């Protein structure tokens, strides 16, 4: 589909207020807090570059991927920068929607940012997307519900606790609960009638999602797909993942301690209402939970007893679109937002999500402001992001992998046998990988 210059003209007419600026950059991103933070970064940038005007366009979260994909696919020259979720970097790059950054930016990024974040932004040896922030998942637990069930709560961060950097290391290295412990505690809380007379024992925030559940297999050393990304055979249905999926299956089908389907945000809602004793969720829930009347604590993400610690990671990136008429200016803005001290400071201060620059992570570790709860959760997250984070696999067929994974783990929760569900997912991924790589 070709685009005629008419659109740009129409937009230019619509933007008469910006007549002074020589270049206008449009960033397409999600609605909500992230947009406000990007506006703050844009203001900081424009204060230095009077000839550039940065506009932020936003889409609702639920429709962001669909609508932005349509605009990218139709080579919309009105979008210069696109807010990019970690797992779609590879497919945007492979489909030619976004441009790689030059080597200078790539080496600067390697020097300044956490290695796993840079790896996720890289496709085919080139850096396509600059990470804006990362994410971390922790175990939220209701102290009163656990105690009432005769369970000693895990060691963690709780109200009035003071946590020095060394405490975080001890907690994360030696005091991490196992998934087996989580299941036992959940059983103690909910008996076998979770959700009816008694509260539910345990839940993951994002039901069945790859981002959320990848640590289950990773803790046991399981990869999702082969290193050349061509097949999931003997990986997703290998021993590690079969064991991990069996543990997941037991939550629903044997022990009945976890609700079978959870909508977005419902785990936190139930936790805040005292209907759920523990959940693994993002650190973005901390403020909401702290505002409730629940007596709660936060422990590091669990691991399997015989495995190693593994945690989800990755969040949003910023990329320059191929259709942008001002790609160089757009790249300069991306560099400012993701790499400069000023840009990353503004972003972190306004959004308060886990940063990816070593400078800010060091600051979080050293600054006494992060000793107290709940700010200390950020310090724990910072440690996890540098030590236990497992990035999602880089593959052109990531969307298909994610969909197959979600289908498999939802079906398993609903009683489909583990082997059957995992084999189906492997087939779905392998077919997609074959179709997308038939050059």
């Amino acid at each position, binding site marked *: *589909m070709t685009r005629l210059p008419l659109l740009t003209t129409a937009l230019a007419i619509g933007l008469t207020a910006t007549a002074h600026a020589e270049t206008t950059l449009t960033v397409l991103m999600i609605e909500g807090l992230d947009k406000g933070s990007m506006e703050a970064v844009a203001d900081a940038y424009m204060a230095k570059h009077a000839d550039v005007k940065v506009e932020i366009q936003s889409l609702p979260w639920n429709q962001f*991927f*669909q609508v932005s*994909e*349509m605009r990218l*696919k139709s080579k919309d020259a009105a979008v210069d920068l696109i807010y990019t979720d970690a797992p779609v970097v590879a*497919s945007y790059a*492979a*489909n*030619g*929607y976004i441009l790689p950054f030059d080597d200078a930016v790539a080496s600067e990024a390697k020097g300044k940012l956490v290695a796993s974040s840079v790896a996720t932004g890289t496709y085919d040896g080139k850096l396509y997307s600059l990470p804006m922030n990362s994410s971390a998942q922790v175990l939220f637990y209701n102290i009163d519900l656990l105690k009432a069930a005769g369970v000693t709560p895990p060691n963690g961060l709780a109200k009035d606790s003071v946590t020095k950097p060394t405490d975080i290391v001890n907690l994360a290295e030696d005091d991490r609960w196992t998934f087996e412990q989580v299941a036992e505690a959940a059983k103690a809380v909910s008996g076998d009638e979770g*959700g*009816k007379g008694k509260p539910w024992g345990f839940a993951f925030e994002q039901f069945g999602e790859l981002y959320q559940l990848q640590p289950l297999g990773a803790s046991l050393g399981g990869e999702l797909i082969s290193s050349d990304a061509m097949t999931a055979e003997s990986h997703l249905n290998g021993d590690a993942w079969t064991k991990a999926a069996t543990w997941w299956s037991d939550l629903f089908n044997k022990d009945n301690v976890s*609700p*079978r*389907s959870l*909508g977005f945000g419902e785990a936190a809602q139930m936790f805040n209402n005292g209907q759920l004793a523990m959940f693994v969720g993002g650190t973005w829930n901390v403020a909401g939970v702290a505002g409730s009347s629940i007596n709660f604590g936060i422990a590091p993400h669990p691991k399997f007893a015989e495995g190693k610690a593994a945690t989800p990671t990755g969040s949003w990136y910023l990329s320059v679109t191929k259709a942008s008429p001002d790609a160089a200016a757009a790249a300069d803005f991306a560099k400012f937002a993701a790499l400069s001290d000023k840009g990353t400071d503004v972003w972190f201060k306004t959004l308060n999500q886990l940063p990816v620059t070593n400078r800010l992570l060091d600051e979080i570790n050293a600054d006494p402001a992060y000793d107290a709860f709940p700010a200390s959760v950020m310090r724990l997250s910072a440690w996890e992001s540098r030590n236990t984070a497992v990035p999602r696999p880089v593959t*052109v*067929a990531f*969307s*298909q992998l994610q*969909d197959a994974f*979600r*289908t498999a783990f*939802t*079906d398993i*929760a*609903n009683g*489909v046998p583990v082997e059957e569900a995992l084999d189906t997912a492997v087939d*779905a991924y392998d077919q*997609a990988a074959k*179709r*997308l790589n*038939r*050059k």
Partner: protein
Amino acid sequence: MNRSPVALLVLTLAPALLGLAIFRAYPIGLAFYESLYTTIGGERIFVGLGNYADLFADSGFWKSMRVTLWFNLIINPLQVALALALALMFVQKLPGMALFRLLFLIPIGVSLPVAVIIWRIVLLPEGFLNGALGAIGLGPYRFLTSPDFALYSIIGIATWKGISYWMIFLVGGLQNIPPEINEAARLEGASPWQRLWLVTLPLLKPTLLFVLVADITINFLLFAPVFMLTGGGPRGSTNVLMYEAYKSGFVFGDMGRAMAIVVCLVVMLLIIVAIQFRLLSSAPAREGK
């Protein structure tokens, strides 16, 4: 009045046909054209009927086809029958009908996404409906997570949302039936049931045909509840073709496959609609005597 019928035709038809040509037919042409292409590594490649050949060789497509046909075989007669029953209730003249008519109109303004959010709460394992059924000693049922129930739950939600809307069309059709005809039949001693079958329904045929065609179209293309509630599962039991197309096109970025599925859907729709026209369109009401 000496205007030639040609000028008249142009005047009356042009606005609608122009609009349809620019904003429907041309994009449809492009969509069909897209189904002949595939994208590999950012390059568009002409594959002719390759996307269709891939589809017909794909067992997932045929499984999804079976789900789609079964879904439509149930939901369309059900919705039209219930909408008709609703329309017949709507035109009753009983005390308090004004209030009931109001209540009948409620689902029209509730958008489908909101209806789905609400119904999800109703159908959850610990939700509303299981709470009520539990009170009389039944259940709990897994309405959305069991392969035996999920498709029927989707049908239920779509029906709740849809029948008020179709009722409006049928009520309109009922108004076009001269009351004298019914009155005459009543005087000749026909029972209400006989009047419905022998007088009302035959005269309602054109409206019924319209509702059936429009309803089938909408249900063939329906996927929002599947998208929001079941993601095609459990075990593929709700994976209708349109959802498969949506996923291919917008989640997987495989527009060629998505458009090939859509074209198959439209061809099936056309065949079904053509059959309906054959069966129903010899409208007896045309003479109006």
